[in-house]
């Protein structure tokens, strides 16, 4: 196998909910080895990116390790009275100060 011929290689990206360890174990079983790591910020998130190679084949695994901003779902959407909006705004800004 040894990484295949260059012209046989395809491109593919897959989102995953599988634990990283399971993907990593499969890569090692297939003959890949870890070449390098880096911390990447993309899409307002911190990722630990690992690069594996096997001959010409290259696989990167990105593991989310945290968020850059404190903004998180759910975003509060209100169709309500001014008092409701103000009340919720005060809770949200208070939480922002605490964190």
């Amino acid at each position, binding site marked *: 196998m040894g990484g295949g011929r260059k012209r046989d290689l395809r491109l*593919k990206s897959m989102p995953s909910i599988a634990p990283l360890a399971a993907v990593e174990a499969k890569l090692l079983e297939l003959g890949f080895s870890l070449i390098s790591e*880096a911390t*990447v*910020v993309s899409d307002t998130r911190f990722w*630990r*990116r690992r690069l594996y190679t096997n001959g010409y084949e*290259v696989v990167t695994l*990105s593991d989310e*390790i*945290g968020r850059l901003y404190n903004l998180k779902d759910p975003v509060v959407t209100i169709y309500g009275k001014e008092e409701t909006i103000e009340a919720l705004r005060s809770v949200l800004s208070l939480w922002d100060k605490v964190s």
Partner: protein
Amino acid sequence: MPTYDCNEHQFVENLRRIIESKLRVVVNRMMMQRDDGKYGLSQLPDQEFKKYDALAYRKHQRATVYAKVHFYDQLHKRLYMQDDILHSPKNPNRYHLSIPYINVEYRFTFWGETYRHEFDVLYEPQIRLDRKEIVIGKSEKKTTLIHVLNFVPPPERMLEIHLPPSTIVFDVRRLSRA
């Protein structure tokens, strides 16, 4: 001409669909080394902050970060004393310790629409004990053993999205419109 921002998954999958339809595509790549204070120690998630454990402490992510010991920041040529503020998200200051990074942007244009994916790769900290001559007061110099922080650029391979040879990647510096 609209420009669409994509995450890595969307960008690669969009590119794959074009490649599999036997079309050739030119991808422009811009890489820019930056140290503009965008990233500081308080923003780092705990896993990343651990790398600075010998030099800094904080209560939690997004809290003010203080120096644990005296140390010298080799890149910015700055000396921090114990309990100096290293980074505060609420009161950003140009004397705060900033983490350099390389901004990478990939983009391609297809039928007049541009698809873009951007990410930043942080420099890795390197901490060692070293003898340094430091200035005390106005003129007195003293040689002492002190922690020295340096930043190492990420490996070049970590800046790339690995694409098949049917994709032509051009490195460009800047985008300008006529």
